[in-house]
């Protein structure tokens, strides 16, 4: 429990359980879901990232390799999570990929202004969705060189 939380490679922030399940399945299929943590709202995401609340035993410096972030979240919305994560010296190096249903230009622009690493619109077709998630996982966990 403790060390699983410490070794989270992918933080999935998604409130829709269907979308979450599909994403996790796609990652599992490609053996990328071993160290994945799924949180269902923005508040819990912030607790995890900043090691507060129920995640206060975490080490902030030991962040995930990538955060997959939906924008439409209850309690604290995705944009706020993005703003906080990118606004703190300790966490701003963590790659954040917005994976969202929204395709609104203003969301895209705002996200990039806040420093998002990648903005992906969730496709309707599962095939395409699964492919993208798998590629994301593959890229950020295996291909990309993390800061340290």
């Amino acid at each position: 429990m403790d060390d699983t939380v410490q070794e989270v490679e992918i933080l999935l922030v998604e409130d829709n359980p269907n979308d979450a399940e599909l994403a996790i399945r796609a990652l599992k299929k490609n053996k990328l879901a071993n160290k994945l943590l799924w949180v269902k709202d923005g508040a819990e995401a912030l607790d995890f990232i900043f090691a507060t609340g129920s995640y206060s035993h975490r080490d902030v410096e030991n962040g995930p390799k990538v955060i997959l972030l939906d924008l439409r979240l209850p309690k604290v919305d995705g944009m706020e999570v993005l703003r906080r994560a990118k606004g703190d010296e300790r966490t701003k190096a963590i790659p954040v990929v917005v994976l969202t249903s929204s395709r609104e230009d203003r969301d895209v622009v705002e996200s990039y202004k806040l420093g998002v690493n990648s903005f992906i619109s969730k496709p309707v077709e599962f095939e395409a969705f699964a492919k993208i998630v798998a590629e994301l996982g593959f890229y950020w966990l295996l291909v990309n060189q993390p800061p340290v």
Partner: protein
Amino acid sequence: MNDAATDNEAKLKEALAESQRRELEFSALLEASRTILEYRDFPQAARRIFDSCKNLTGATAGYVALLNADGDENLVLFLDAGGRTCTVDPSLPMPVRGLRGEAYGAPKTVYENSFMSSPWIKLMPGGHVRLDNVLFAPLLVGGKAVGVMGIANKPGGFTERDAHIATAFGDIAALALSNNWTLDELAKSEAEVKKLNTELGRHTAEIEEANNELEAFAYTVSHDLRVPLRAIDGFSQNLLDEYAGKLDEEGKRLLHVVRDNAHKMGQLISDILAFSRAGRQEMSVAEVDMKSLAGAALDVLQQTTVGRDLTVDIKPLPSARGDFSMLQQVWINLLVNAIKFTRPKPAARIEVGGAAEEGELVYYVKDNGVGFNMQYVDKLFGAFQRLHRADEFEGTGIGLAIVKRIITKHGGRVWAEGKPNEGATIYFALPTKEEKHG
């Protein structure tokens, strides 16, 4: 001989005096005419015309009156008693009767020099100005007497010449009145037009707002529909993947039907969103090379024509002013259709052309495909209207609707011609002038 000379001298003097009198009358009439344009207020104009007439004829009193709405009473605009007293109550009705009535009735200019011994004296109210003689000249508008100018108390009495003069002044006064009425009508019309324009502006704003709301609604709803659709597609795929072993052929077929329909629904939603976007997007207008744009659109569709005997002839096209990506969408949609509907033909021929024609640039895409019945031409550009069965040709029927939307936004128009089994030609025209809607 002396008598003849004296006679001639007298005649000459008389001729000269007459010439001078004529000149006086002339300039008085000209001056009176000028008042028509100088005075917007009729009573003021009438006063000046009356004064001129009074002075010229030698009368010393008078008035100008107009007929009331019912046509049976006079409304006095002003009264000049000429120094004599008049104690008639001004609020007393002044019916159309007596000599004045004759002026109205004929209508013609009338006068009476022995007023005190005339039958008209009985009709005079007590306290009225003492009248030695009186002349009435009607004001005629449209052949009808709508008012009267009366002059009175000329030393020596009125003459026929005075009557002619007064008639001329009466005509000028009538002209001033008529002009006045016309200007009043004009002002009223202008006010009416202004009011209607304001209402129109308000209605237009209301309609625009309703349209915007509708489009935003279509966008939001379509968008939100994608989320559960993804779940249907994804979970049915997972079911197929992981339980294929436990399903017989029929089970798999049922699942495929579910998935097919989920895909169709996804396509429909995409089309609704595309259609909605076509209306909402901001346009960035620039010079567009239509020939290379059409060529680029064809390149994009190259893969769909592999293995087919298909010739596309893109003729020289005049460049247009419009939004690049929107016009690209137009070419793509039109070519997609041409390519699709020529599929059943062994040798497909598509022609793209355009020319400048009377204030617009007319482009067309012509194909020798399955064509359509002109009876249904009105449905061609309707959203989600299809003229072919689903098993004949795929598609949701949104392509031409999007074309129409985009071209309309550019201030242009679309139309089409077709013949079953012989082919179809889709035309669109863009205005050449700078003014554009959107």
